[in-house]
């Protein structure tokens, strides 16, 4: 009888362990957790074709590339890394968002894994975004410019030049007013999920700054948001809101839903990444979709700067197969793969050997033109750790949900900044070191 009992118990155990047992490995495994389809439609196809090509070239390697979701990419990576079970290659958003994981001890420096001549092909400004403590931690996956996408037909209808509808803030207000008078919602935004505030910051936050040091001084808590230099953009945002230029259901829409108002003719303008704008141009036509820089109101040296950050790949500390990971990353930089990235996902690899004759859309040509003319600066890249999630996002939300005034918002932003610095002292130490 006891026998039967033991059998029953064992049976249960067997079921459990059988389910737990990882399958035996034959090939060398390379796991990649990536993102990008959301802002560069086609990136998934590109990645899958790269994987296929790589596997054909290296028959002993099995590549497992997993597309992550915006809401869970960082969660997934950090939990896995916390437990020492991360992928071999991880995609991260550029700037402090990537360096935070470096400071958490989640990444391996790439200097010993990737030869210097590979780095020599990458523009200095792109490398700088993830260079810390004398080491290179990330390698760019692709870059894109931020811009305002607008409906050219709506512009024509109000008698505005559809190619360059505005350059200054006053012109922007004027255009918005005309659009509104014409029965259109000028700007389509969705703020419910909290991505939008940092985007707005990228377009307007830097306009009174002279250099990156101005922002770093702020993020360290040495300066205050109450200084008009730092909060004028909040007043501009309030102006747009009060004049009724923003869709009234901003609070019940997610970020992507707000953007998609442009495609569904629910709004005439919205903020987009270059990659997505180019894909819209391809699907809706260049007579309909235009891409333009942020209107200028500021007086800082960075007032007319453009934001062209790059997203990066890192090799996590827990990666089992670091050499293979590095090999794959180098493989992505081969010239024909660079072209494949552009053809399939409208995304440009930051590279000195990128051939500008490949460019096929108006949007990309416009951006190429900007890159020659304006300084490249991205406001979001220098946020203090956790500042976006716990400070900027909810506080800008409150400007819409509770009519929080820009002055009060500035006070709250200072407090939030103080809190994030206090709660993450170790990371913040690293943050200071990076910027010295």
């Amino acid at each position, binding site marked *: *009888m006891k026998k*039967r*009992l033991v059998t*029953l118990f064992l049976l*249960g155990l067997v*079921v*459990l*362990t*059988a*389910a*737990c*047992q*990882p399958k035996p490995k034959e090939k060398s495994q390379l796991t990649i*957790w990536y993102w990008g*389809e*959301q802002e560069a439609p086609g990136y998934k196809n590109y990645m899958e074709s790269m994987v296929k090509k790589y596997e054909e070239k290296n028959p002993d390697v099995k590549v*497992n590339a*997993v*597309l*992550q*979701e*915006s*809401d*869970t990419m960082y*969660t*997934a990576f950090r*939990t*896995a890394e*916390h*437990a*020492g*079970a991360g992928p071999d290659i991880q995609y991260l958003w550029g700037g402090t968002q990537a360096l935070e994981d470096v400071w958490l001890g989640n990444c391996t420096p790439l200097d010993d894994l990737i030869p210097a001549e590979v780095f020599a092909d990458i523009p200095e400004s792109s490398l700088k975004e993830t260079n810390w403590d004398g080491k290179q931690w990330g390698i760019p996956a692709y870059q894109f410019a931020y811009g305002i996408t607008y409906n050219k037909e709506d512009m024509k209808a109000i008698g505005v030049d559809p190619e360059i509808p505005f350059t200054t803030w006053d012109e922007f207000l004027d255009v918005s007013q005309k659009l509104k008078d014409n029965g259109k919602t000028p700007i389509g935004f969705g703020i419910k999920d909290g991505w939008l505030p940092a985007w707005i910051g990228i377009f307007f936050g830097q306009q009174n700054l002279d250099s990156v040091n101005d922002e770093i001084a702020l993020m360290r808590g040495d300066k205050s948001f109450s200084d008009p230099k730092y909060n004028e953009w909040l007043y501009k945002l309030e102006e747009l809101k009060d004049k009724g230029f923003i869709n009234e259901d901003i609070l019940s829409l*997610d970020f*992507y*839903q707000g953007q*998609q108002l442009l*495609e*569904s003719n629910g709004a005439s303008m919205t903020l987009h990444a270059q990659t997505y704008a180019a894909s819209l141009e391809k699907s809706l036509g260049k007579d309909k979709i235009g891409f333009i820089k942020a209107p200028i109101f500021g007086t800082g040296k960075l007032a007319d700067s453009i934001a062209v950050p790059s997203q990066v790949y890192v090799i996590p500390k827990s990666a089992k197969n670091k050499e293979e990971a590095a090999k794959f990353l180098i493989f992505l930089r081969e010239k024909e793969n660079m072209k494949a990235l552009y053809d399939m996902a409208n995304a440009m690899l930051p590279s000195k050997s990128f051939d500008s004759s490949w460019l096929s859309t108006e949007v990309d040509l416009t951006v190429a033109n900007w890159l020659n003319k304006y300084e490249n600066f991205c406001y979001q890249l220098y946020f203090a750790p956790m500042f976006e999630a716990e400070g900027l996002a909810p506080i800008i939300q409150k400007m819409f949900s509770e009519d929080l005034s820009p002055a009060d918002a500035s006070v709250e932003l200072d407090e939030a900044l103080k809190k994030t610095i206090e709660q993450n002292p170790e990371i913040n130490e690293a943050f200071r070191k990076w910027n010295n």
Partner: protein
Amino acid sequence: MKPNQKNISFLRIIAFIFLVITSISILYPLLFMFINSLKTHQEYVNNPAGLPIKVTLDNFITAFRGKPFGLWFANSLFLTIAGALITELLAFPAAFAIAKLKIKGGKFLLGLTMPLMSVPPVAMLIPLFKLASTFNVTKSRGVVIFIYVGILLPMTIYLIHNFIVSIPDSLIESAHIDGCTNLDTLVKIILPLTFPALITSTLVNIVWIWNELLVSLVFLQDESLRTLVVGITLFKSRFTLDIPVIMAGLVIATIPMLLVYFFAQKQLIGGLIEGAIKG
């Protein structure tokens, strides 16, 4: 007597109206989901509330094409069946031993179930993830099943125990006198009598696992391991423009549980009452 009667029938009409309104408020969101999964996007924009003029199944095709819905479905099914069965397999003997075998500390063990039920899963996640990683089994369905079993056991033991307690001791004693071991008693005497309770708790657990979000969200990150509920939750952000496609995804995730409900309504509701009331 007469005015009173009138009064009562008046109250009954009010009550009826109240129930009708409650039922509509419950059915409408479901209806909204079903009818919109059958519309084109354009029709949804023009007429989100009403019935579709032209029924289309394209949304389901798009949903299946955009994401591995079939795979997610299979994942959910596997986790649900394995989790629910193993929970039952372990909870049944435990509940029996606590209720009828007079084991030492039985009362304590039973008393433990209620506090264990109240521990929020979010608090268990980090430690369990660390534990799983020391055994290098983070991305495994087995671990997730193990966790589901652990979370569901307290409630299941509690429900089954309440049922077994009401079985007269004399039945078990006479079985013992006939030479039955405890295991024999469990299988031959208790099992047939407790069957309804087992079915109920299995159904409750099936519903719970199928709908679980947090544990599978954190543990099963690979797209190939994802469950249907996690899949549709994240899927939302990709098709935000095409709402009928989202609705189609939701319908796919919901139909299995509605089927379970309609075919096993009696056991589900009846047993739930039974277990809770006696407790």
